[in-house]
């Protein structure tokens, strides 16, 4: 099929443009945090996972050590391993393609692929979103880093406020039910309590430990992947562009949702609009790559 005729490729391309653009904010914030131009580019070129990249510079900006920054980044990247399993089952890439697919396995490419029913469409959606975001994210990271260097004092321009807004923007689409909201509040409080007592950067790891324990021991509700499971924002495969898909390309994108895990969460996904329209849930504010 020609890429121009592929609905999945169109979704992938629109996601790539929206996501790539905010590489500008990463680039500018990264040089404001104290990394230089090439370190910033190394994060976008080699690490390539927006949440982890923001985490890394967020810790550095707060005066944390490189070790703490690396740890926060690594923990935030765990969900990409879960995506990798899902995509491996869906796309079955072989040979060197697996190694390329792994590099562009991020929130948006996973969501684009899993939102499709037909195997060919899944592949096209995944690669167009993944490679498109990779290209644009790096171009705009470079632009943002130049801009950030040219601005001078980052505080005068409110770049530290921009970082706060960026993290809230990454968190927001995941808060769709009581449990994730409760976890977010608990982790926020734990962080504030820990700040005066431990070295900068460490409070984030303390909060991660708490969040990990909650996940480990979480009871109640419907077990993940069980029929009738309701997406509450805690499942790792967040679809950052649900509104986009629903408004621009409803027919091909909708029915595929239930096939994400192939384990019968059609029902759960079917009632997605109920919470998908919760306040603040927004396509463009989806998680970074």
């Amino acid at each position: 099929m020609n890429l121009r005729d592929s609905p999945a490729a169109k979704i992938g391309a629109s996601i790539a443009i929206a996501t790539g653009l905010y590489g500008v904010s990463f680039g500018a914030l990264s040089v404001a945090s104290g990394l230089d131009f090439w370190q910033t580019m190394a994060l976008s070129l080699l690490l390539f996972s927006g949440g982890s990249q923001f985490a890394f510079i967020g810790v550095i900006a707060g005066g944390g050590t490189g070790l703490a920054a690396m740890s926060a980044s690594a923990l935030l990247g765990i969900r990409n391993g879960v995506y990798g399993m899902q995509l491996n089952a869906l796309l079955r890439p072989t040979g060197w393609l697996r190694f390329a697919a792994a590099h562009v396995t991020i929130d948006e490419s996973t969501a684009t692929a899993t939102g499709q029913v037909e195997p060919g469409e899944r592949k096209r959606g995944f690669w167009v979103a993944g490679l498109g975001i990779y290209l644009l994210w790096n171009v705009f990271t470079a632009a943002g880093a130049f801009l950030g260097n040219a601005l001078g004092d980052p505080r005068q321009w409110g770049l530290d406020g921009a970082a706060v807004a960026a993290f809230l923007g990454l968190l927001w689409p995941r808060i769709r039910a009581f449990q994730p909201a409760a976890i977010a509040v608990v982790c926020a409080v734990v962080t504030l309590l820990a700040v005066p007592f431990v070295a900068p950067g460490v409070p984030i790891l303390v909060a991660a430990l708490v969040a990990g324990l909650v996940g480990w021991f979480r009871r109640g509700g419907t077990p993940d992947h069980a029929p009738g499971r309701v997406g509450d924002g805690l499942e790792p495969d967040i679809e950052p562009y649900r509104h986009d898909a629903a408004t621009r390309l409803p027919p091909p994108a909708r029915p595929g949702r239930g096939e994400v895990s192939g384990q019968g969460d059609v029902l759960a996904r079917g009632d997605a609009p109920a919470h998908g329209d919760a306040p603040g849930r927004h396509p463009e504010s989806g998680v970074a790559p």
Partner: protein
Amino acid sequence: MNFWLWVLVAAAIAYLTKLLGYLVPAKVLANPRMSRVAGTLTIGLLASLTVVNAAASGTAVVLDARVGALVAAAVALWLKAPFLVVVIVGALAAAGLRLLGWP
């Protein structure tokens, strides 16, 4: 301080984490507990990073213009503004409050 080492280590770990999903048989890794932990970790880390960037200064908790940025960003998100707009609103709020004399 030179962060090169940590940038490269973080990049290597990020890539290996992604690759692990493709190379390890799904049966080994695919358990609900692992998915849950990945989900709660992501939310907890993002909440913590938001707070640290909004209110921590070294080892002190401070209320400065960044808290204004947090509130402004929340309003923008509530109004369903796109990510980039939210970030710009945050910057404008912090810069504006500093112009008005808030630290």
